[in-house]
């Protein structure tokens, strides 16, 4: 039987606010345990939450970026459950009236294939603390620094049909939130976490199969692997006459498998109700329009513009728009040198190779876009040849802030294009190598093509690499052939 996979995702994005969603405690990562958990975060008696405007603004910006409905009124509710890292006994969240309504995200699957995934809604909520299960004298340790950190939970419709589409979706969300600057998108530090809903159905069947929810997957690769494992498990189960049960599963990257979390005796009943401590959030159109003015150019717009206006290939446009720092670097280089194709080649070629080799983020590149743009300009106006350009790049990488022009001058790399000077060097090489010249002149055309390389090499050496190789080639051929 042919099976079809159906996937929906819930992505929790940690918002990049300075302070928590309902308190003035810091959200900085990596602090000593419980040094950033204030009375509100601890749920001490008598405290009241006050909503952070920064978190509201970020949620609205996301809504605008996915062209979503943004209702005038939204509401916080209490999701009730007991766990030691949830001090209040409930998580303040949204359900019936989330801050962001229906929207859509465009996925780029490859250079020609795109797909639209519908967003069901996105809502604001607070994160819980962290439980440490190492043995503290038979007890568990609780760190509440993370309690109250603002999260935007983005819930998709079950529109994805393969692990590949699911990964493309998460990449698209990652690109949007990092372009907007509303999250650092750092999956390793937990700034983006996914719950993946997976089911299978016979191809052509309308009704969805029973789904399993895989909790807390925290890397692009794990999302792909978890889905692949889970799909295979469900198909095998059904084909062997079994039934998929609706349950929560965990992905274990070490064993590369999903497994059932302890099934609770009864289903969760969170008993949501409106939080009496928080009033409804009202967003008027003036506020929303103001947020719209703060939006940067978004990844899909940028990608399209790189292709259509700058004439880059779909592949180049995709790579260069993948992250905001890369796109900004590329555009800064382009602003200096004016040639998109060259700027694209240098950023993806020499620069990327150096950054990868030393594992440096483009944001911290030792070569600034201004320096690289300056270097490319000198290639474009034929001041230096390609070989010298690589030499200049290496010097820019290792030096402290000299411009390409300063390096070209200091190292005498300026390309010699003066015909007289080149002819003189060629005459000298011909005079110094009578044997090779004689062999060349006896050879047929096909062999000469190969043999001329020797002479070009000698001339380039004599010029210390500064001669223009095309020019040398032309003049040499003329002089060798004429006798």
């Amino acid at each position, binding site marked *: 039987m042919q099976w079809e996979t159906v996937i929906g995702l819930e992505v929790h994005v940690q918002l990049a*606010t*300075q*302070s928590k969603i309902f*308190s*003035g*405690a*810091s959200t900085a990562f990596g602090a*000593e*345990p*419980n*040094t*950033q*958990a*204030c*009375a509100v975060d*601890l749920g*001490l008696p008598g405290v009241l939450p*006050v*909503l*952070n*405007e*920064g*978190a*509201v603004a970020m949620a609205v910006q996301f809504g605008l970026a996915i062209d979503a409905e943004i209702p005038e009124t939204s*509401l916080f509710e209490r999701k*009730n459950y*007991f*766990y*030691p890292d949830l001090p209040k006994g409930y998580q303040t969240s949204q359900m019936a*009236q989330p801050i962001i309504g229906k929207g859509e995200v465009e996925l780029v699957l490859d250079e020609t294939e795109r797909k639209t995934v519908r967003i069901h809604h996105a809502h604001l909520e607070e994160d819980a603390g962290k*439980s*440490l*299960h190492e043995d*503290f*004298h*038979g*007890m*568990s*340790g*609780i*760190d*509440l620094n993370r309690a109250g950190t603002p999260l935007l939970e983005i819930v998709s419709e079950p529109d994805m049909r393969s692990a590949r589409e699911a990964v493309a979706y998460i990449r698209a969300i990652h690109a949007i939130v990092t372009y907007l600057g509303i999250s650092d998108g750092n999956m390793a530090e937990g700034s983006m976490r996914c719950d993946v809903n997976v089911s299978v159905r016979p191809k052509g069947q309308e009704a969805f199969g029973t789904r399993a929810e895989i909790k807390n997957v925290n890397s692009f690769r794990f999302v792909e692997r978890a889905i692949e494992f889970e799909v295979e498990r469900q198909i095998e189960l059904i084909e062997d006459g079994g039934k998929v049960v609706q349950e929560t599963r965990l992905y274990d990257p070490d064993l590369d498998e999903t497994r059932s*979390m*302890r099934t609770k005796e*009864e289903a969760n*009943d969170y*008993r949501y109700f*409106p939080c*009496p401590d*928080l*009033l*409804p*959030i*009202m967003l008027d159109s003036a506020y929303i329009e103001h947020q719209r003015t703060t939006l940067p150019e978004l990844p899909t717009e940028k990608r399209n513009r790189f292709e259509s206006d700058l004439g880059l290939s779909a592949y180049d446009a995709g790579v260069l728009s993948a992250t905001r720092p890369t796109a900004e670097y590329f555009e800064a280089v382009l602003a200096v040198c004016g040639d998109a194709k060259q700027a694209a080649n240098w950023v993806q070629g020499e620069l990327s190779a150096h950054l990868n080799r030393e594992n440096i983020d483009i944001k911290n590149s030792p070569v600034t876009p201004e320096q690289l743009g300056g270097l490319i300009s000198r290639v474009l106006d034929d001041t230096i040849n390609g070989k010298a350009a690589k030499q200049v790049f290496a010097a820019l990488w290792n030096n402290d802030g000299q411009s390409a022009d300063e390096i070209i001058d200091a190292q005498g790399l300026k390309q010699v294009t003066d015909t007289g000077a080149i002819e003189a060097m060629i005459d000298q090489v011909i005079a110094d190598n009578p044997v090779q010249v004689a062999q060349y002149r006896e050879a047929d055309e096909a062999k000469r093509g190969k043999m001329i390389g020797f002479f070009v090499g000698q001339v380039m050496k004599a010029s210390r690499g500064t001669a223009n190789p095309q020019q040398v080639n032309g003049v040499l051929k003329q002089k060798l052939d004429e006798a």
Partner: protein
Amino acid sequence: MAIEHADVLRAAHLARLGLKDDAEAHGYVDDLTHILEMVDRLQAVDTEGVAPLSHPLDATQRLRPDEVTESNQRETFQACAPATTEGLYLVPRVVE
């Protein structure tokens, strides 16, 4: 809507309330049944086209600027915790 003994036990479990005995649970069955009877009477009101009231005050949420205003008061807060170590609150072991 009728409430039954099992509903009371389940609600008590969800809220982590310890009921003394069955007699107490039966007491709650009666109390809650009265409350629900009152709710049933409210159902008679025509609420067609009326938005649900989420808050009795006719006011909207005030927002605070995104600034860190709280400093570290761990020592004060942990002074009243039953058990701590290395800055962590200690609780009976939780098994995933």
